[in-house]
């Protein structure tokens, strides 16, 4: 029975809690209820109240307490019920957690899990992609898995990391994708991108749910003879710039894709990296397919117009290929 993306995260957390008694979970409704998305269902029964801490509605306290516990040698895995509420814990994350090691050599091994992303008609407060607030903050690591395999391997690495890690789970993928996972224990290293599809004509660099959109677009384009390489970044900070430059050198044409809104999105950082490092290798402009600069709307026709689609990617890729 193949494992869903959600199950993969669950399994990863379960294994890490079995492996290391210092790992504990903290968040709202994660115990008896098993979490809003049921990622932690069954953990309370197995690991007890000590290791599965239900909290009041206080994101800042959740992250603050995670930091305090981490400073004292534990490893906290905090859940934001939706990534949209992470802004309520913002100061703790960007000022306390992010700067401890640099300032006074105090490691803060915490993981903040946050279901993010749109496509579920959640509206402006249950669909955001907040990754760039954290990618731009030195001291934080940011992870955004696209597959069940990576979700499991990356959550395990995140738990073991000695730095604060923001772990964005795309809630649209939770139950939509599944795959067979290897039997034994494995991890996926932070900071390493992966070529999700090989190609020679054009690169799509992306992450999270958009990896699937890119693959869908690539399949359409393959029927037209355009062989697209899809690079799945997996970790957004630290960014695997070598892999980014590698695929660009290979295909010479780059389309940047993300579900996040455009201005200040990761595509900008990638474009700057590419023009700085592989300018001579590029055979056409770097182009972007992203959400437009609006809050994410609720109603299906608006949300559909808002989200990047395989169709939009195909059109832009065709244009770039011809360029």
């Amino acid at each position, binding site marked *: 029975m193949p494992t869903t993306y959600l199950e993969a995260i669950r399994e990863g957390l379960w294994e890490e809690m079995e492996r290391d008694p210092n790992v504990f979970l903290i968040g*709202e*409704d994660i115990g*008896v*209820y098993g979490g*809003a998305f049921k990622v932690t269902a069954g953990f309370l029964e197995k690991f007890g109240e000590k290791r599965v801490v*239900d*909290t*009041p*509605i*206080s994101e*800042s*306290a959740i992250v603050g307490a995670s930091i305090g516990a981490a400073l004292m040698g534990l490893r906290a895995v905090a859940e934001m019920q*939706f990534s*949209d*509420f992470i*802004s*309520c814990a913002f100061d703790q994350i960007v000022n306390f957690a992010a700067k401890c090691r640099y300032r006074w050599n105090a490691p803060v091994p915490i993981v903040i899990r946050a279901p993010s992303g749109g496509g*579920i*008609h*959640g*509206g*402006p*407060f*249950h669909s955001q992609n907040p990754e760039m607030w954290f990618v731009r903050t030195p001291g934080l690591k940011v992870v955004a898995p696209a597959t069940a395999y990576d979700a499991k391997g990356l959550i395990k690495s995140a738990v073991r990391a000695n730095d604060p890690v923001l772990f964005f789970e795309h809630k649209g993928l939770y139950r939509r994708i599944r795959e067979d996972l290897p039997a034994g224990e494995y991890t996926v290293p932070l900071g390493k991108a992966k070529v999700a599809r090989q190609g020679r004509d054009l690169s799509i660099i992306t992450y999270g749910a958009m990896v699937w959109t890119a693959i869908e677009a690539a399949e359409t384009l393959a029927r037209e003879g355009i062989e697209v390489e899809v690079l799945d970044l997996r970790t957004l900070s630290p960014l695997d710039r070598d892999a980014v430059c590698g695929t660009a050198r290979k295909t010479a044409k780059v389309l940047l894709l993300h579900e996040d809104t455009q201005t200040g999105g990761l595509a900008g950082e990638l474009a700057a990296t590419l023009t700085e490092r592989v300018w001579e290798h590029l055979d056409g402009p770097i182009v972007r397919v992203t959400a*437009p*600069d*609006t*809050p994410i*709307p*609720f*109603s*299906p*026709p*608006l949300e*559909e*117009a*808002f989200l990047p689609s395989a169709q939009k990617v195909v059109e832009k890729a065709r244009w770039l290929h011809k360029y």
Partner: protein
Amino acid sequence: MSAAELTIGISDTASSSPGEEAELAGRLWHYMALMREAEDRIERKLYRQGKIVGGVYVGRGQEAIPVGTALHATAEDVLFPSHRDLAVFFIRGVPPGRVFAQYMGREGGLTRGRDGNMHMGDLKLNIVSIISAMAASVPVAAGAALALRYRQSNGIVFCYFGDGATSRGDWHEGLNFAAVQKLPVVFICNNNLYAYSTPLSKQMAVENVADRGAAYAMPAEIVDGNDVLAVHQAAGRAAAFARSGNGPYLLECKTFRMTGHSAHDAAEYVPKNLWEQWGKLDPIARLQSHMLERGWSSEAELDEARARVRREVDEAVAWAEASPFPDPATLLDDVYES
């Protein structure tokens, strides 16, 4: 005040004339019944039919709170309903059709499809839309009160939230600021014993939200939130206090959420006996008994009133279903002033 301590009876109304009492009871009943019918339709029919977009949060069993309080609001007053206070919209004059359209993601909703469910407001009616983050509207409500005083309006602010919201930093900052500034706000807590799946005991170390008033030197009153006449009277005191320039007032209404947190939550974490106990304290049923007892209404009249409410809801649903989905061409509008 636990469910066991609440009586099934209902408070006597204040010293108004019998005719006024009956008339008031009728209005209280109407808005509670309308809220119940509208939310039942949403949660138990339209949602199951797949006609609702996104999540559904209802105030089943808690209707006495928005109704008993908001009927005190004057046109100048500004209201910040929580996700369990649908009746506030009806009392302010929002046509029910627009609420259904909101839940269905239609152009006719108060947010024109940009947001869903209870995340809606209407500045012309002085209803401010909450955002999703619990308690975020508390400091905003304080600011609205500051503006009312600044403009020398007689208006006051009604700020609604649940027990769980009181754990948040914004709640504290907002109450503290309102208290320091002696702002005209009535803070109205629906204490329904749960925040999503989390019982009170895991949210706070105190027994009552009202116990938190002491941190702000704020008068805090506890009222049976399932007794609409009691709520109405307490809210009257609270509003009068705030309106007289004495500063904010904290009103805790003890109640129970007679449903899951949202339509997809079976609420298995709630002990069975709580459903039973609180089921007997249904605020609409209690008011109805009282109305019949006092002779303010007959069974036949109530039946007719119920039919009227159903018809109103039928028509509203039809209106909403006829409302188009928003045009994707409008996607980029109104991010900024154009």
